């Protein structure tokens, strides 16, 4: 039952692997020697059964202990009752007669002036305690807090955190999500250009495109994290991009060009692409394993605060770099001969062929460039999130949404659509629970198809 397919595990020095059993054995020592060997004395096992705590006001900037507060603990059956008064450090403790059910009550009138319980209903707390345990009772001080809910922003953020500078919490969350969404959108967009161009030039909806994204990320990970070589991520990313581009070219030469030559229908080509998608995905799983993996470079970076939003430096780089790459792609499509040829083939293949463009060559280049970009997108996505075997397939669904939204077969439409999808996914968490955030993006796809089937930038033609 080896886990040798997870190559990374080989690197671990055996001594860092502290087994659960050893941990458990330590627990045994705890049990036997009554806490002598315990690392953290604060929670050491004790022989007395106690209730206690520290009264303090943490709602302000300072952590302020409250002195002279009265707290009473009674047993549920009424046979025991004792009152404690907090000391200068705010702490109090009551020794209880043994395990059982108790009620702890704070006397709010003894609180210092201006201090109120954050939750006045919680002035009395019932609890059950086993023999020999200590129970901390919390009576938080501060302004009342609204009941929390997923996606609800609480409204009365008490400030002090890095993000709340000068901006109301609602706004900064909106802007933060917008920026996160743009980042996601730029990455999806970079990945999706190839999907859209391949569709434009050959009519094929390539379901295996997502695997190019995965392979790009995994290739870079191979050189930066998986193997011991520790090549810089920049170089590893470049290698990954070249490799996926090469792979795309090989793929076209060995598979798609042959199928086109054979005159295979688009539907059977689509099915072939699905076959490759499944096959490649599970080959990656077979070698990489099912866990999330990370590059060794730029593993963790502190976020830089920009006021309304914050980003780690690598994300700033990702956004800037992908914007640069996308502008370059735009310039290449607009200005260079091959770019024009690509657009011409996507526009009208027969016409392009009759005006002397080598359509097969253009398609080959589209495959190479599109796969390379997808690989690069995978490298960036792996950098901002993690590298896993299913990452490309999951992005593929968003790419579909984005490219359809923007207009199938148009490079700029794909980009615009993906940006919209990325932003929409993040912003939708303001309303719906985050675990369902992709639903919004995919529903948009359906709505767009109803209202504007050609997509945002697509030409109005009868489709179908």
């Amino acid at each position, binding site marked *: *039952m*080896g*886990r040798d397919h997870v190559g990374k*595990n080989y690197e*671990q020095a055996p001594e*860092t692997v*502290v087994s*659960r*059993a*050893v*941990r*458990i*054995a*330590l*627990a*045994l020592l705890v049990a036997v020697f009554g806490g002598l060997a315990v*690392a953290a004395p604060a*929670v*050491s*096992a004790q022989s007395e059964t106690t209730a206690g*705590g*520290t009264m303090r006001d*943490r709602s302000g900037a300072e952590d302020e202990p409250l002195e002279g507060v009265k707290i009473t603990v009674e047993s549920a059956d009424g046979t025991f009752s004792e009152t404690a008064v907090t000391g200068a450090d705010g702490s109090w403790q009551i020794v209880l007669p043994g395990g059982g059910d108790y009620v702890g009550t704070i006397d709010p009138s003894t609180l210092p002036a201006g201090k109120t319980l*954050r939750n006045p209903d*919680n002035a009395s707390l019932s*609890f059950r305690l086993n023999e020999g345990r200590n129970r*901390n*009772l919390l009576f938080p001080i501060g302004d009342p807090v609204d009941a*929390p809910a*997923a*996606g609800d922003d*609480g409204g009365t*953020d008490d400030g*002090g*955190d*890095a993000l709340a500078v000068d901006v109301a919490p609602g706004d900064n*969350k909106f802007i933060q999500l917008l920026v*996160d969404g743009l980042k*996601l959108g730029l990455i999806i967009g970079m990945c999706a250009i190839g999907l859209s161009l391949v569709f434009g030039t050959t009519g094929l909806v390539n379901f295996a495109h997502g695997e190019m994204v995965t392979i790009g990320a995994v290739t870079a990970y191979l050189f930066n994290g998986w193997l011991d070589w520790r090549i810089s991520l920049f170089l590893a990313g470049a290698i990954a991009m070249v490799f996926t581009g090469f792979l795309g070219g090989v793929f076209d030469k060995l598979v798609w060009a042959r199928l086109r030559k054979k005159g295979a229908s688009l539907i059977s080509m689509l099915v072939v692409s699905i076959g490759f998608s499944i096959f490649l995905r599970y080959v990656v799983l077979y070698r990489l394993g099912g*866990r*999330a*993996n*990370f590059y060794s470079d730029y593993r*963790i*970076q*502190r*976020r830089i605060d920009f006021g309304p939003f914050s980003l*780690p430096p690598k994300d700033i780089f990702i956004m800037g770099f992908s914007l640069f790459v996308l502008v370059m792609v735009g310039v290449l499509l607009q200005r260079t001969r091959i770019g024009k040829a690509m657009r011409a083939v996507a526009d009208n293949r027969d016409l392009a062929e009759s005006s002397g463009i080598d359509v097969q060559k253009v398609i080959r280049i589209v495959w190479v460039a599109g796969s390379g970009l997808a690989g690069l997108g995978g490298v960036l*996505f792996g950098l901002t*999130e*993690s590298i896993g075997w299913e*990452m490309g397939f*999951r*992005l593929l669904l*968003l790419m579909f949404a984005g490219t359809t939204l923007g207009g199938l077969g148009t490079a700029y439409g794909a980009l615009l659509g993906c940006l919209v999808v990325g932003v929409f996914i*993040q912003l939708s*968490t303001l309303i719906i*629970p*985050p*675990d369902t955030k992709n639903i919004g993006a995919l529903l948009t796809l359906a709505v767009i198809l109803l209202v504007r089937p050609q997509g945002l930038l697509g030409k109005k033609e009868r489709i179908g």
Partner: protein
Amino acid sequence: MNKTSKKLLAAGLGLSMIAAACGGDSVAGSGDGELKFGGILPETGNLAFLGPPEFAGAELAVQDINAAGGVLGKDVVWLPGDSGDNGDVANQTVDRLLGEDVDAFIGAASSGVSLTVIDKITQAGVIHFSPANTSPAFTTYDDNGLYFRTAPSDVVQGAALADLILQDGNETVAFLVLNDSYGTGLLEAAKGPYEAAGGTVTYEVVYDPKAENFDAEIGEVVAADPDAIVVIGFDETSKILTGMIEAGVGPADKAVYGTDGNMGNALASSFDDPSVVAGMRGTLPGVDVAGTLADFKAKLDAVDPALEDYSYSAETYDAMVLVALGAIAANSDDATLIAPKLNDLTKGGEKCTTFAACKDLLEADNDADIDYDGVSGPLEFGPAGEPTQASILILEFDGSGSLKVVDSIQGQIDS
């Protein structure tokens, strides 16, 4: 309709006739004198990382049982199988193993997968014994008395987690919870006691473990600015923790808590600099009452030298040993005879901690009242066939990313 089609149709009808005609050939789980265990443990799917220790535990149990002379004079048989993470794979495995006349299934790791096969197994009169299901749903499930588990219900761990958060004096807490029954079940079990003791949950979110990113969730946590953050999840915790550290709410900035799903060495090892998780604390069910665990770990390593984690290996081991003891007590390998014996074997009576020792007691007197205290805990099964007592370890990552046990909490389930 062409000729081939007609022939096929005829063949199909013929087949159904045969099916109707062939009577019962044999009864699964009935005594054939040989105790067979079937495994439905994750070899594939998103819980695949839980598989290796469970398989190792099972193989070790088989070794130990057979080394002590087996059951009913014969060696017990272990037939491993994959549970995957969706019902398809598990069902196929169960079909296959039912065909091999297994007497007890060991698995599955995921409560969800167990629910897809529990009816099939228990209605066939075979024992379904999970080492890792913690969902409270099984306590009340109509299982013909054939479902058992050695993992304690999440209620115990949840209370321990709440206790831990309270001990550390955290007045507000944010929960980041994996969307499955493990995550949401543990969330409920922890939230109740925590709020009852005066704590406030300022933010709770259930996330999709396969999500493209967790920016939105972490953004909410930052905005909520709690004293403590609890992450209940599996492997994806490494992604979330990365985001939290980058957003300034990592273990160095806040009190961060985990649970048995993620408090493993794998979490620290997914960071090149494991010190970033230093200070993160969490709960893990299980304790050594018999004092044989160091030995147990060494034996597991011998079974599978590549083991990285040991989660649920002890529970798997105990499940198999219990069933084997049950067969000795029932003097049969018929699952329906073994099942009624199992609960009593875990409580009251003469204590024994190894299969060999317990077997000796039982063989000396078939009706001997024994109390098997296993490597995973005192067991003490309640009427629902699950532990009523559990020890929860409190773990903490140190500066080198190693897990240290800092405390243990005894939990009791009222039943």
